[in-house]
């Protein structure tokens, strides 16, 4: 709900400002730390790791408990997803995929918390003027993941094909050695499109979702229930789907990089 005395535009812009070390309007800031994103995502990550570590410590090959069952379903699901696309050793890639899936899922889940609640708590309990609770609605978080994946794509390309093989493919694919400049342009675009699309897809979906929630919160209280409920239910799908897509594309990109064309 909008605070009395603020215009809707002020309300929306207030909600879209980070708790940051400094505020500037640059699209890519070089000095502002987004504390809220870092804090929320780290807490969520620790939640994930604590839960899974608990299950791992208690893991038994006998009759599994409920927590172990839940964790095993996720582990099996991720392991199968990796197994289907990637034919190398899964020792690193499968845990990576699991971390990405559960972590982004938890990020996205923050979008289901009432949109005014985290800033209100931040303001009245911790005295923070601005607070954004959804890490995946911040490009810093999504690009952090996608750039890590980008680095892994390069590493796995070199690992799978060797430096020479990677360079050769980069220079001579898909048009042959005669059209070297065209190959370089195309491959650069292809390579860069992967992390950018990966980050922007997740960010776009969750940012739009958050924005709709903010807009719904601008309605009179009696008109919020139906659209708020509808959008939240729809968002359950988006939350899961976007986390799944991010994980699957990570696996696919890395396996494409690792294997010969």
């Amino acid at each position: 709900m909008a605070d009395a005395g603020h215009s809707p535009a002020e309300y929306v812009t207030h909600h879209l400002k980070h708790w940051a070390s400094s505020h500037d309007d640059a699209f890519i800031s070089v000095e502002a730390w987004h504390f809220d994103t870092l804090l929320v995502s780290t807490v969520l990550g620790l939640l994930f790791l604590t839960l899974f570590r608990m299950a791992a410590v208690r893991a038994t090959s006998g009759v599994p408990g409920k927590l172990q069952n839940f964790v095993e379903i996720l582990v099996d699901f991720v392991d199968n997803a990796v197994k289907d696309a990637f034919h190398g050793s899964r020792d690193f890639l499968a845990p990576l995929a699991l971390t990405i899936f559960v972590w982004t899922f938890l990020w996205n889940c923050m979008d289901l918390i009432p949109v005014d609640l985290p800033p209100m708590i931040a303001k009245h309990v911790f005295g923070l003027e601005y607070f954004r609770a959804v890490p995946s609605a911040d490009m810093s978080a999504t690009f952090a993941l996608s750039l890590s994946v980008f680095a892994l794509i390069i590493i796995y390309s070199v690992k799978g094909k060797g430096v020479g093989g990677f360079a050769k493919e980069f220079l001579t694919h898909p048009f042959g050695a005669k059209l070297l400049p065209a190959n370089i342009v195309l491959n650069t675009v292809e390579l860069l499109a992967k992390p950018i699309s990966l980050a922007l897809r997740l960010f776009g979906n969750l940012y739009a979702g958050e924005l709709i929630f903010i807009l719904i919160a601008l309605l009179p209280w009696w008109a919020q229930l139906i659209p708020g409920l509808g959008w939240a239910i729809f968002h359950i799908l988006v939350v899961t789907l976007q986390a799944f897509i991010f994980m699957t594309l990570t696996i696919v990109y890395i396996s494409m990089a690792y294997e010969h064309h």
Partner: protein
Amino acid sequence: MQASIPSIVGQMIVFGIFVWFTMKFVWPPITRAMEERRQKIADGLAAAEKGARALQDASAKSEEALKAARAQAQDILAAASKQAAQLIEQAKVQAQQEAERIVAKAHEDVQREIAHAREDLRKRVGELAVIGAAKILKREIDAKAHADVLNELAARV
């Protein structure tokens, strides 16, 4: 809407630590437990199959033993009845022989009795003949002098 370089770098470091932790301390124990359970289930299924096969074997063996026992019983029964028939036959033969022997003995006895009676009769006839002849001749016959004649007579009777 803003991406911040320090945030990205910080977030990447956090991400790296999380992935490392998952890889080291979360993933291996869980997958190991799952693999062990898979192995256990496979072993259990194999054992069950083995048990079923053993049961099948045992039932086949018992069936066979039953069949053999039945056949043996049949054999024993047949042998017994054969032996019984043999015994009866033997007894019959024995009885026959006994009967024949008795009949023969009786026959012999009768024969001997007849011979005996004949001998007796002969002796009597001799005496009677001597008495008759003495009466006829009215004199004493010297039995000793006429023994030859008498014996001849007796033999002729």
